[in-house]
């Protein structure tokens, strides 16, 4: 969970059944408000304990997808007309799920949702009332969000609410309970964003919100969705062929005074699309020349693909992306290149196609299918550089890769296409085709190169898919099963969460699984390469030491001071480290001392104790001496045992010499004695 003042604290009411956020906001799980639900969160009645009667409701994130926590931090307390005010957010113990959940407290819009679904029909709003009471506050709200660096990306008629019961004012609904733009209908998204899979749209640009606002404006002005019942594919195709404005407005009559702003907001060219400044000028009475679409270079003769004639590369790319397997031979046989040179008379584009195919051969991993897919993906990028990266069924902008990966992992779906797209350098190709240089592109290229390196080492802890997941998603909570009951978004919350987990898990389970290691590697700003290297060692002792070292570093740098549960957990895993000492006496000392250190709750102390350099050196030196002693003893034993074979011979020689010496000595003494007897 987040710390105090960051995300808030969880808690339960005095009764123990009503969760209370930050000792102030009571949430009533028994009082759901389904009309205010979002796709990834459930709405419940809420109450401000200090200001009773204030109309509030709570959105509890109950869905599997990650919410936009950074956006919550910035939205809290932001009050502007046209925006549903986020009063507070934080984490609560959510009894129905027996887990911690993110909760957002909003001011309740009293007039309900403007459109319950996109197929709804409502009373059209007159243009005079619309501009002053509705459109302008919404533009102001988007402008204010832009000033705070927030892209709303959930501007759609079904996420607009009447803030009062009279229906005089409309506010933008929640944009933080789910991933960015994931719930947006294709009709509300720009052509490029609509091409993406919902999770792969990415944050995009602020102008995308104004585009969505333009679509909302059309629907509110005519009281219905002009494209209701039309499939997403057809909406995209129509937008591609005719432009958004024509697609939406061709069959309806807009108030004359609204045409200019709607045309400006719905401009498909992002450079021409109206943003806050231009809409503000328009609201203030300045009238501008109508936005005209840039002329596009059309081919002299059509390229026939799937029995359809195409005159524009962009439309052809869209058709090819939707008919992947049939497009591959067309591209590789060179027909496309010939058409570009002769039909479109664009040699530069044709050269780029050749380069794109050559690039694919370089990264195609000597696999024919991989080469073909990469080649087509590269060619589609060249044909339509503004479109998202398209790789078989994967479609995402470079800033949407994280969203796709996060959603696929959260929903338990296959992540192969995302990883292949990264491994085959498609983001690099996409970034290389940008017309305008941006310093961010260098950073992004470097980031994707790192991600590629992680994926090339898929079995290493702190790399692989998990590392990519956390590197690409700042708001991604740690998905370790060990932390399933908690929400760990900040690295500082990890150790306290593991401390709580300690009491629930089998002590033989390791506290650092792939997700946690990847999360730490992605979120911890300092160098932990030595710890990661040790963690990935095959040797159990070194791996356990690496694990303890990493946790100790985190506690040392980030706190908290005492982690009794986690210390006890780690203490139970010290077997391999204890056994790595040779001296049995040292092992006994360690076994006796570890419980004392565990009671202190300090992982750094535990680490320093079990891996003291002096103790290690002394143990090693003494062990070497002991080995030498043993070897010398063994050698002596062998010599003594082999010496017994020749013992008889030695003994005989020695005995004979001894006997001879003794005998001669006796003779000398006798001579001396007898001689002395005669002399005296």
């Amino acid at each position, binding site marked *: 969970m987040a710390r105090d003042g960051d995300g808030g604290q969880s808690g339960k009411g005095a009764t123990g059944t009503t969760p209370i956020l930050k000792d102030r906001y009571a949430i009533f799980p028994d009082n759901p408000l389904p009309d205010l639900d979002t796709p990834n969160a459930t709405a419940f009645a809420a109450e401000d304990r200090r200001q009773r009667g204030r109309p509030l409701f709570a959105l509890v994130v109950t869905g599997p997808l990650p919410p936009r926590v950074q956006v919550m931090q910035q939205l809290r307390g932001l009050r502007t007309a046209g925006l549903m005010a986020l009063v507070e957010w934080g984490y609560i113990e959510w009894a129905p799920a027996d887990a911690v959940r993110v909760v957002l407290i909003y001011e309740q819009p009293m007039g309900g949702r403007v459109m319950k679904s996109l197929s709804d029909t409502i009373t059209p709003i007159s243009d005079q009332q619309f501009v002053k009471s509705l459109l302008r506050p919404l533009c102001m709200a988007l402008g204010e969000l832009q000033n705070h660096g927030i892209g709303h990306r959930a501007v759609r008629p079904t996420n607009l609410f009447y803030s009062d019961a009279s229906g005089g004012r409309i506010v933008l609904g929640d944009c933080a309970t789910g991933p960015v733009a994931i719930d947006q209908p294709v009709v509300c998204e720009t052509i490029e964003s609509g091409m993406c899979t919902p999770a792969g749209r990415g944050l995009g640009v602020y102008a995308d919100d104004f585009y969505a606002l333009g679509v909302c404006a059309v629907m509110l002005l005519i009281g219905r969705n002009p494209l209701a019942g039309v499939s997403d594919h057809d909406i995209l195709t129509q937008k591609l062929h005719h432009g958004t404005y024509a697609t939406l407005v061709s069959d309806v009559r807009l108030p004359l005074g609204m045409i200019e702003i709607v045309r400006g907001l719905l401009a498909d060219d992002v450079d021409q699309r109206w943003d806050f400044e231009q809409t503000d000028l328009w609201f203030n009475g300045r009238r501008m020349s109508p936005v005209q679409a840039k002329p596009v270079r059309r081919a002299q003769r059509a390229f026939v693909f799937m029995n359809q004639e195409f005159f524009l590369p962009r439309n052809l790319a869209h058709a090819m992306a939707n008919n992947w397997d049939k497009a591959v031979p067309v591209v590789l046989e060179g027909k496309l290149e010939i058409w570009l040179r002769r039909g479109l008379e664009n040699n530069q584009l044709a050269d780029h196609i050749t380069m794109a195919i050559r690039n694919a051969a370089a990264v195609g991993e000597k696999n024919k299918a991989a080469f073909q897919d990469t080649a087509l993906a590269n060619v589609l990028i060249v044909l339509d550089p503004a479109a998202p990266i398209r790789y078989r069924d994967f479609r995402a902008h470079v800033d949407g890769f994280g969203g796709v990966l996060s959603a696929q992992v959260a929903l338990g779906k296959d992540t192969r296409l995302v990883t292949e797209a990264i491994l085959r350098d498609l983001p690099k190709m996409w970034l290389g085709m940008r017309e305008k240089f941006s310093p961010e592109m260098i950073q992004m290229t470097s980031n994707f190169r790192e991600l590629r390196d992680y994926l090339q080492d898929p079995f290493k802890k702190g790399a692989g898919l998990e590392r990519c997941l956390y590197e690409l998603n700042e708001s991604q909570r740690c998905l370790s099963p060990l932390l399933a009951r908690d929400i760990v978004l900040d690295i500082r919350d990890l150790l306290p969460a593991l401390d709580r987990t300690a009491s629930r898990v089998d002590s033989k389970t390791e506290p650092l699984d792939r997700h946690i290691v990847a999360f730490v590697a992605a979120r911890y700003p300092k160098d932990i390469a030595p710890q990661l290297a040790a963690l990935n060692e095959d040797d159990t002792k070194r791996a356990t030491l690496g694990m303890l070292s990493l946790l100790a570093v985190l506690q040392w740098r980030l706190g908290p001071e005492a982690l009794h549960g986690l210390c006890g957990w780690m203490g139970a895993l010290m077997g391999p480290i204890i056994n790595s000492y*040779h001296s049995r006496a040292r092992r006994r000392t360690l076994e006796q001392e570890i419980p004392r250190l565990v009671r202190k709750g300090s992982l750094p102390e535990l680490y320093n104790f079990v891996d003291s350099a002096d103790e290690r050196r002394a143990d090693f030196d003494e062990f070497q001496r002991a080995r030498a002693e043993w070897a010398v003893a063994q050698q002596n034993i062998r010599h003594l045992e082999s010496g017994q074979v020749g013992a008889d011979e030695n003994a005989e020689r020695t005995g004979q010499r001894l006997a*001879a010496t003794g005998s001669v000595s006796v003779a000398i003494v006798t001579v001396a004695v007898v001689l002395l007897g005669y002399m005296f």
Partner: protein
Amino acid sequence: MAAGSQGASLGLTAKAGGLLLFAIGLFLFLPTVLYLVVTMLPTAVALVIDRSATRSGWLCVGGLNFAAACPGLFDLWFTDPSLEYATTMITDVFSLLIVYGAAALGWIIYLTTPQIIGAFMEMTSSRRITRLKAQQKQLVEDWGSEVAREEVE
């Protein structure tokens, strides 16, 4: 060639000198020589028959043999250094028995001492092996079985 013939003639001269001196000695100290020839006979036999590794049997036998013979020898020298007295002494069976008994004892000592020494040495090395093995066992208890490898790094 000349040097070789010169060396050979020198050896021959020495041998001849030796023989001459022995002959003079035999003539001058005949009683002593007679007494020693008879009493030291076991030593001469031991010198001939000894095939042991050190070939020191004659020393062992000779030492005790001479120790037993020397009182008679000094008696001969200081009492009556005559041939008759020498003959009387070597015909005294009791004296001869003592002298030859001492020689026999020397031989017995020469034969048994190696066995005693061997038994002692064997006992000492077994005890050392036991002590070394106990030391190794203690090392294994203190440091584990991995200490029991001979290659020392």
